[in-house]
């Protein structure tokens, strides 16, 4: 039998007499899920930290090969339970491309509205837990209260507060309920002004800024080389957003900006930039939802798709801009009613790959800031 995995990682480390190796995780509140960071330190300075993942691996890709095309949809919720709308949508887009199905405009708009609400809700958790990790406990309670309002709105739409299972292959499962739009607008009015208040509370707080500015700077080249995506890539100053640049779904019909890190508090690509991108993205999402509600077309919400679709043999990639970056579903069909291969490429997995290099020379407290600023979520890393 091989050595236990922990020993193997430690075997790659050769601590000197002054250094120690500590397991930061897997059960630790600031690791954002069950992840182990095997960390070699000299006092407070990290020599390097190697992430050990897989604690939440549930074999999603294998499940995708066994349950049939529509049957995999509820599983996608569990890949990223903080932003399940995108996980649904990405899979639906991949299979729709295989089936060559065009979904009705109303379904596209509903996906965009639900998705952007979900992004706001996810970013509230991201910015709230980040403040909490840094040591400010109040902002998290505010952030969770804000998220609660969105959970209520999405519950009204599809009956679920976390694992939505909202998108369907060919459309969405439920139409918008009566009076839903007004409720959203009321919330968005509150959100737009509340973000300013939140900025005064924490984003521009001197202690908070000093903990994040110039910490764990990811340069442009490094961000691209490591395949970072979403707010982590944009935090490094690269203006890339699948919603704008790949123009999928209803997004070509909306006007919105793509916030990028500008190094306002320190170097471009530091922890504060990644944080600030998320705060600004909430306001952009708010803009998108307002436009989508104003232009929401009437009509069907489902295209005609067989209950057990059998796509022609072939392969297609479905990409969406998830809250954690471009989420890709690569689905291969062999012509039967079950997928031959389902591959899920997630932003959290890519973000974890950069930690070993970035951790070198950080303080232990800064490693926590780095993990929080990458906004990783363990089930999305492990799938």
């Amino acid at each position, binding site marked *: 039998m091989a050595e236990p995995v922990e020993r*193997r990682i430690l075997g790659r480390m050769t601590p000197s007499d002054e250094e120690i190796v500590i397991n930061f995780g897997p059960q630790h509140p600031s690791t954002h899920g069950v992840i182990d960071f095997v960390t070699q330190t000299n006092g407070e300075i990290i020599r390097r930290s190697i992430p050990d993942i897989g604690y939440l691996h549930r074999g999603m890709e294998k499940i995708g090969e066994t349950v049939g095309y529509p049957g995999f949809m509820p599983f996608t919720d569990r890949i990223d339970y903080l932003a399940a709308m995108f996980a649904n949508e990405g899979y639906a887009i991949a299979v729709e491309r295989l089936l060559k199905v065009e979904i009705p405009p109303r379904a596209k708009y509903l996906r965009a509205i639900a998705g952007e609400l979900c992004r706001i809700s996810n970013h509230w958790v991201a910015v709230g837990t980040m403040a909490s990790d840094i040591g400010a406990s109040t902002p998290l309670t505010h952030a969770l209260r804000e998220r609660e309002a969105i959970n209520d709105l999405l519950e009204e739409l599809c009956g679920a507060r976390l694992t939505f299972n909202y998108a369907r292959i060919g459309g969405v499962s439920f139409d918008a309920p009566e009076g839903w739009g007004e409720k959203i607008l009321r919330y968005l009015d509150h959100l737009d002004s509340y973000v300013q208040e939140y900025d005064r509370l924490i984003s521009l707080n001197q202690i908070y800024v000093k903990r994040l500015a110039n910490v764990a700077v990811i340069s442009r080249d490094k961000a691209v080389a490591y395949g970072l995506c979403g707010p982590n890539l944009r935090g490094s100053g690269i203006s890339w957003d699948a919603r704008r640049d790949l123009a999928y779904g209803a997004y070509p019909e909306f006007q919105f900006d793509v916030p990028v890190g500008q190094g306002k508090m320190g170097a471009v690509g530091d922890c504060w930039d990644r944080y600030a991108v998320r705060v600004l993205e909430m306001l952009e999402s708010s803009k998108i939802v307002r436009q989508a509600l104003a232009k929401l077309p009437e009509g069907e919400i489902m295209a005609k798709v067989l209950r057990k679709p059998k796509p022609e*043999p072939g*392969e297609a990639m479905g990409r969406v801009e998830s809250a954690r970056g471009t989420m890709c579903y690569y689905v291969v069909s062999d012509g039967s009613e079950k997928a031959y291969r389902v*591959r899920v490429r997630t932003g959290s997995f890519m973000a974890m790959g950069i930690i070993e290099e970035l951790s070198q020379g950080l303080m232990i407290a800064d490693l926590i800031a780095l993990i929080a600023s990458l906004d990783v979520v363990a089930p999305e890393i492990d799938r």
Partner: protein
Amino acid sequence: MNAQEIHAKLKAQFGDAVGELTEAKIDPFVTVKSDKIVEVCRFAKSAAGLDFDYCEDVTGIDWPARNLIEVVYHLFSLQHRHQIVLKVEADRSQPSVPSIEGVWKAANWLEREVYDMLGVTFVGHPDMRRILLPDDWVGHPLRKDYQEAGGYHGVTNTRPDPLVRLVQKVDAERKAIAAAAPPPVAAPATATTTTTATATATNIAPAPAPVPATAPAPAPAKKESPNG
């Protein structure tokens, strides 16, 4: 650039090492000879006009019928917003492909995952070990012929069919009740009227409870367990 132009450029540089563009399959892809993949990737990254700066995904597909494993590379150019899918075929018995970790750092973890899930060894990878599963795991789960072991270090990953278990439990309870019941001959002898008989039956705690009519019917023996 579209896929045809990208393919033409790769073909002009590498000739026979780059296969035809498979266009009929929704997302077109190009099959590349295994020993040329690093050079092709380096060229795709650096050549003017191609500028594939972003390795979006590395994954694999198992084809037992064709006796090979395909390693699939999704390359993307953030600058030009174009993409190409490259594939490398590896022998299924000893799959081994050169590592492109030196071209894009992102491939480091992606190749480790392919190794973990499909057993493809990437030659030249600096840290070729399992990433999601424990190091002493047996087999590679995304292979089509993968058989789950009964468990891992004494932790079982199967369970009996809950319906079968329920039927067994109900049967055992019925037997216990029947064993605890007084002999069936004694009851009609002592009972003078029907009313007293029911009164005693309801008052004595361990009285033989009649088998409820709604008890779950035994499951058909042939029904397969959903959990194997």
